[in-house]
């Protein structure tokens, strides 16, 4: 028996180690990544950046067996209305669509990413790198403007650990719309690493809708490298889970690029949502707008950690971050940590954070006009989240997101 890499491994970590050892094909970088994960272990609340989202604790809770739906039971995606190129990752199995692909889009299964330097101290990313068997590789060729969106459906129905990776290159002057949905009633752990490069003059619009069962542990890690005069526009909506964390790491390497990183969380029951991001400004005159809106009721918990890191080369950076939390019950919680770290002197950076209950004055105003209490509350919460939803450029997609918010408000708020 080989010696464990882990010091004092938990049953969970030992299980993963066994699973890693049992794999038939692992590359050198994967072995190195597993070694890195082994040193760090699952992050717990004592680890900086993880104090509000303790994976170690969440994964130790007994996991129920998820119910596997029979084949063909996968429901139609609401985004089917946008005629997307639909790729499914069902319990870790990639399902690529047959038939014609839009001009300029290529995709196939490839070997997963080797090590990712900026994630070497990120235990969960290292675990993903080590454990992922195959990755989905996609490319939008130079100058292509896709006439249909790409839809990736992450569907998880089981328990246990599942890993997947998507690598997307948006070539020069290309434009792609990517929609990702996290779905299914599974009760396991799902980790998805999304690695993208937006080349000069390119644009990627990415929408994420994470709407899984409440027992799931979901971890989406997005690393975006943004080249010259390009744009990365992202809006994500999460309804939380046992633990749902969506990370975005954006790097501006070249001048005149911009990003929008908007997110909204709607958490009820004992659900937990975490949006964590850091944006690194290495080059001049890049712009970022970031808005987070979190609604929590019951014992729901909503975490936002946002960081702008402006390096010396990041002169004329224009970056704004705002996080607003709405707490609909006494037990609901919001944890915000907006951070600025600035090493350039000619920049405009700002952040703000608010947290509070529904505005009683506004509520009374609406009721005075004839709205009953439930409708008035719904209208105000909808308005609160609406600012994020309204930012979605694609009208049809915006409509679907708004419908999901309304649905949540009707059923959960």
């Amino acid at each position, binding site marked *: 028996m080989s010696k464990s890499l882990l010091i004092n491994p938990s049953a969970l970590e030992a299980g993963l180690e066994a699973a890693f050892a049992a794999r038939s094909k692992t590359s050198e970088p994967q072995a190195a990544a597993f070694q890195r994960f082994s040193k760090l272990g699952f992050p717990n609340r004592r680890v900086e950046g993880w104090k509000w989202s303790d994976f170690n604790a969440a994964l130790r809770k007994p996991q129920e067996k998820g119910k596997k739906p029979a084949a063909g039971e996968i429901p139609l995606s609401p985004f089917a209305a946008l005629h997307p190129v639909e790729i499914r990752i069902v319990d870790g199995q990639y399902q690529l669509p047959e038939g014609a692909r839009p001009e300029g889009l290529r995709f196939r299964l490839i070997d997963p990413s080797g090590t990712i330097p900026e994630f070497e101290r990120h235990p969960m990313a290292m675990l993903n790198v080590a454990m992922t068997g195959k990755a989905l590789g996609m490319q939008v060729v130079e100058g292509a403007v896709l006439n249909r969106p790409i839809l990736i459906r992450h569907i998880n129905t089981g328990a246990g650990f599942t890993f997947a990776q998507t690598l997307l290159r948006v070539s020069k002057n290309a434009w792609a719309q990517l929609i990702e949905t996290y779905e299914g009633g599974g009760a396991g752990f799902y980790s998805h690493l999304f690695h993208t490069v937006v080349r000069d003059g390119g644009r990627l619009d990415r929408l994420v809708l994470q709407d899984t069962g409440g027992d799931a542990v979901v971890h989406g890690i997005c690393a975006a490298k943004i080249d010259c005069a390009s744009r990365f526009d992202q809006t994500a909506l999460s309804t939380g889970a046992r633990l749902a964390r969506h990370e975005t790491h954006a790097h501006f390497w070249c001048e005149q690029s911009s990003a929008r990183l908007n997110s909204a969380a709607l958490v009820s029951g004992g659900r937990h949502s975490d949006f964590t991001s850091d944006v690194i400004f290495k080059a001049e005159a890049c712009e970022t707008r970031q808005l987070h809106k979190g609604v929590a009721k019951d014992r729901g918990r909503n975490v936002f950690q946002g960081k702008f890191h402006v390096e010396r080369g990041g002169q004329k950076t224009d970056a704004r971050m705002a996080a607003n939390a709405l707490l609909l019950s006494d037990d609901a919680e919001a944890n915000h940590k907006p951070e600025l770290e600035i090493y350039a002197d000619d920049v405009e950076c700002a952040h703000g954070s608010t947290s509070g209950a529904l505005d009683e004055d506004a509520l*009374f105003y*609406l009721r*005075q*006009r*004839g*709205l009953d*209490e439930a409708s008035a509350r719904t209208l105000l919460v*909808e*308005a609160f989240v609406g600012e994020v939803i309204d930012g979605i450029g694609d009208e049809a997609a915006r409509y679907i997101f708004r419908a999901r918010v309304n649905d949540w408000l009707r059923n959960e708020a």
Partner: protein
Amino acid sequence: MSFLEIKNLHVTVDDREILRGIDLTIGQGEIHAIMGPNGSGKSTLSYTLAGRDSYEVTDGAVTFDGEDLLALDPDARAAKGVFLSFQHPMEIPGVATMNFIRTALNAQRKARGEEEVSAADFLKLIREKAKLVGLDDAKLKRPFNVGFSGGEKKRMEMLQMAIFEPRFCIMDETDSGLDIDALKMVGEVVNALRDSSRGFLVITHYQRLLEYIKPDAVHVLAGGRIVKSGGPELARELEKSGYEQFIEAA
């Protein structure tokens, strides 16, 4: 049966008694004006009539059409036709103005068992009334009152009053902060609604509005009580002499 009857109304806010026994009866078709010094309880009275829950009625009664008004939720009062033009109207970010007003109108109508107004009919209605109160289309497309000037917010109150056609209108300093044309417009909105089925309670500090809206009665509210009542001449008298005499009396 009287239209609106307030009897010995006592109201406490944050453990402080603000209204200390108000008696006031408004008959159908009547306009009553209330004047009085700052902090005397005028807005407290209007909030209480509209049903704001932090305003605790410790004694007294209010009936509207013979029905116990105080037993109703704010939205139920609105459906019965009670409308409050707020002294300080809210800005409500993220709420689309037209959609909200239509939702409110239809909620009221539904509660009364009336048919809902179609989107097309509503559009016609709001366009017509917006013109009357002097709000252009661009303002209707903005989130509710967001970035509006004080006067524009008051126009938005009048727009809603004109659309809802309430039976009992409480106008809490609608005239404050309005230019002369807007003041005239408020008079037009009120006079267009004024008929034998409706009543108005007009709170104001100035007698100017009362030149456009001829009140049937004027009351002075001071220290949480009505200390004097009279005809329109009382407003003119107050404009000259101020409230000092009444503060003593209260």
